[in-house]
Structure formats: C-alpha cells, structure tokens
C-alpha cells in the first residue's frame, strides 16, 4: 500500500504514520506500507519526461520554468501535475491500494477537475491526450473513491454540501463516501444534574451531541468516527481511527 501527501509538507501524514519527514520518493515504512509526499517541482519534471516525453535535459531548464509560469496563471496545469502523479501511482502495478491525503474540501475541486479543465482548454497536444486517461481513471468507480471527511458543525457541513453539489454537477469522480470525524456518542443523563464539573461536563456533552446530530441529520455520513478525548500522539490517533474504521 502507498500513502501519499498531495499538498504541503506532508508533515501531518508523516506524524500520523509515526515517521519523520516524508521523501518525494516512495519509502517503505514497515512491511507493505510505503509513503511519499508529492514535491511539485519533481512531479513536474517526472510528468514532462514520462507523460509528455520531453527529454530529461529540458525538464530542469527553461521549459520547466516556463511551465511553472503557466502553472501560476492557469493552475489546472499545476494541479494536473499533482493529480497526475497520484493517478500514475494508481496505474502502477506496484500497489494494491494508493491512499492520497488531499487538500481541504474547499480546494479539492480544482484537482479533481484539472484533467477536464485541460481537455477543455487544450484542444491538442500531448497534455490533452494524457488528461483523457486521467479523467477516465477518476470517473471509474473500480479505480477511484473519494472520501470526503467532515466534522458535524455548520461550516464543514455547508462546505461538504457544496462539494457534493459540485460533484453531482461535474461528475468527475465515480465513487464517493462521506466520513464524519469527531462524532460524540450519546450520554444518558438524569433529569437533574449535580452542581459542579460533573454536571457542567454532562451539560456540555449533551448540548454538543444534540448540535452534532442536527448536522448529521442534515448530511448523513456513510461512516462516523469517534471523538478522541485527551492527549494522544498522532500515531495513537491514527491507530484508534484505523480500528474504528475497520470495525465499521
């Protein structure tokens, strides 16, 4: 299995996997589990060489710099390099499963749509051909599933609803599921609560639970993951979440 971080430093994924900074090259962390972080410049160079068949010598010089400039103005190109790297790993025979830690809900759309945008924007050229298979892989439910992770609060719920409406319109992924994280369990409390911390904590829990259910009723999740209390290391959090996911 390959776990990869699509954007940023990849530190969040690294600490949850209990390892140091991730390398842009797939590294085996323990038997069967590999990880990498996508480095945009490196991914661009790989993309130009392997997908665009640009000679290696040109991928670090002016052409790569020119591409960077286009990417700044037309991010679909920058994003296709990132999503292209993910999908290239999916196509690779080395992995049974590739799990990508994506950008926030509000930003994922431009990555998922990058191939389609390129197809619309670029009528010809190798980049348009490559965008075709990427688009197909994303839309194939046997190959790709999008897990939209949310928490049962107003803003994340609204943002998730907006993403779902957008996905319904754009039809860019074949399969998706909603995962609600940090969900509180019910608490059976007596009619009269004692004064002091125990009563106050119960009141807070009941009120938060009720608030969370309002949002979960509005946006039902395919999977609910529990709120984890207290000081835990990221690796412990990952282990607990993995157990809960497996049990579900």
């Amino acid at each position, binding site marked *: 299995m390959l776990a990869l971080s699509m954007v940023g430093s990849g530190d*969040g994924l690294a600490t949850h996997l209990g390892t140091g900074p991730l390398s842009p090259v797939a590294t085996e962390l323990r038997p069967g589990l590999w990880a990498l972080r996508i480095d945009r410049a490196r991914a661009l160079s790989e993309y*130009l060489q392997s997908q*665009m068949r*640009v000679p290696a010598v*040109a991928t670090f010089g*002016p*052409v790569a*710099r*020119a*591409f*960077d*400039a*286009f990417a*700044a*103005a*037309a*991010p*679909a190109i920058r994003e296709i390099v990132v999503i292209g790297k993910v999908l290239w790993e999916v196509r690779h025979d080395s992995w049974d499963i590739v799990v990508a830690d994506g950008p*926030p809900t*509000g930003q994922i759309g*431009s990555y998922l749509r990058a191939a389609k*945008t390129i197809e619309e*924007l*670029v*009528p*010809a*050229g*190798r*980049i*348009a051909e490559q965008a075709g298979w990427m688009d197909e892989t994303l839309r194939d439910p046997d190959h790709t599933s999008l897990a939209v992770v949310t*928490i049962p*609060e*107003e*803003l*994340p719920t*609204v943002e998730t609803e907006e993403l779902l409406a957008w996905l319904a319109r754009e039809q860019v992924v074949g399969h998706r599921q909603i995962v609600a994280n940090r969900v509180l369990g019910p*608490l*059976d*409390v*007596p009619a009269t*609560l*004692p004064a*002091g*911390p*125990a*009563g*106050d*904590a*119960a*009141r*807070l*829990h009941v*009120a*938060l639970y009720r*608030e969370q259910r309002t949002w979960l009723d509005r946006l039902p999740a395919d999977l609910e993951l529990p709120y984890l*209390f*207290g*000081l835990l290391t*990221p690796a412990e959090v990952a282990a607990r979440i993995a157990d809960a996911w497996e049990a579900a």
Partner: protein
Amino acid sequence: MSTRALLVTGGGGVGKTTLAAAIGVVAARRGIRTLVVTVDPARRLADALGTTLGTEPQPLGDEPNLWAAMLDASASWEAIARRHADPAAAERLVANPFFHAATTQFPASQSYAAAEEAVTFIDARAWELVVVDTPPAAGGIDFFTAPRAITDLVGGRLLRWMTGGNLPGRRFFFDRTARPVLRIAGTVLGTQLLDQIAQFFMDLRTTYDGVRRRAKEIEDHLRGAHTVVVTTADPTPLREAVRFFRELPEVARRPEAVIFNRTLPTSWIDADPSGIPEPLASNLRRWAAEAHRQQELRAEFASRYDTRMAVVPWQPEPPTDLDALERLVKASEGLEPVLWDTVD
C-alpha cells in the same frame, strides 16, 4: 477620523467570524464607531447579526455605533485588469481562456481582492475601528502575502524574460529569446494554446505598474494594522496559528495575541469524580482529559511564542443575537484588554 484596523485571522472553522463580530459588538457598545467586515458569514451568524449582509456597510439593529459589510472577493482579477491595463489589453485579457482560469483559480487573487476591499474600508476614515474577519484561504496568511504574490506574478523575472524588457520592440525580444525555448512546450501544449498564453502574459505585463503601486499601498496598510490570531487547541488550527507567528513579521506586524476559542474550564482537570454516579463520572473523566490536553497545548504554544493569550469558553451553541455575541467576549479571559490596547 483616525481609523484603527484589527485583523482577526486564523485557520478555517475556529470561530473567527463569530469572534470578529463579537469584538465589533463590544467595541461599538463602548461608544467606538465600528465597522465589522466579514467574508462569508455562516447563516446562523448572519441571523445573530440580524441582517443579510451586503458589500456596502450597513448599520446593525439599534446599535448607533455598529456597521457591518461583507467582503466581495469575487471581483478579483477582472477588476484588477480593468483598473490597471489599457482598455484594449483589458478586453483581450478578460476574453483570454487563460485569464478565466486565472480569475477563478489563482489562489492569491481572491485574497488580494479581499485585502484591497478591506483597505478601501480602512481608507474611508468613516470608522474609528474596522474589524476584519480575514478569508481562510491558505490558512489565512494568504491575505497578507497576496499583494506580493500578485506583484510577483505580473512583474516576476520569468514573465519579464518571456515578454522582454519594458522597452520598445519587446515583441522582437520575445520572438528571439523566449519563443525558441517555448517551442518545446508547444509540442506539449499545442501551438495555438501557446500563442494564447503568450498574449495573456504580454497583456498581463501591462498591468504591472498599476498593480505594483496598489499592492504596495495595501501592504503598507496591512503593516499598520493590528492582528489577532484565533485558534482552537487542535493540531491543524494550531499549525496555522504557528505560521502567523513565524511568517507574519516578514510582511506585517507580529500578532498582538493568540485567542484560544472553545476552551474547557481548567477546574475540570483535577475535579474528583469519586461519589459521582455513572455515566456522569466517566463523562467527567473524558472531558477532564480533554481540558488537560488543551491546557498542555496552550502552555506549549506560550513557551514557544512569547505572546499575549486570551481564552474563550466553549459554547455548545453559537450566539443567536448581538447580546449573546457580547456575552462571549465578556465570558472570555484576556480578550478585552487586548482589544482596548489596540483601540487606545
């Protein structure tokens, strides 16, 4: 009228908009002529403010000193192009498919538009205090770096190289220097597209002087503004908060304070659950562990970044009116002193 600006920043989902509104209510009720500018308030906050906000400042309820407005971050590049390019170049830019991609997707453009709008309100000198709820894009720090990002894009070294210097016969230079190299890119992108891109950059380049001047004005204003960073004691928002303390001093003033929202009482940490019936005792243990975790993270933050700190108690339900917003600030520890020091 001398105007103070208080920028309320932080990652998404930490209650930043609510706290910006709450600070506005408290300041206004102290007799300070206050404008709250917000990005896209959650529906329930809009309900609490008692109005649907527009992009023009409007008075709130019966409050004599309180106004609110929404930042229009959608105007972005089309406005920039029309303001700073000559009319023909602006028309070409707006019609260029690459321009469309840029307006909708260049991450800094919305933050730039929001910063420009916020500065316009500060510049109007119609309020004593302008409280700005900054957009959460890229953790919110984008709001401060966007003017430079835009200037770099339209005046960057690469763009100058691709479009030639600012000299007569620039096109000639471009044809002789950049084009041969870009021919390789042409096989990848198609030559028709390459022409569109080249035209896009040539036209974009004409906005440089105007953009640079305006971006500088915006940067100067942001540098003069006070900033508070809102976070919760959770890993992702804390990572965003740390960025403000590390990176903001490069482009603006160091934040005045960090505000920890959704704070649990520290008195729960050592509360004795013995004698308490189940399930209340177990519930108290869980929340006490959570209160302890929050306290540890706050202490760690304080030890790393020597800054003022305010804590706002965890409210299970969001405020429903202006009085509730005011109560949120009154129930906090350390928030009012930060506010009055900023305003005075």
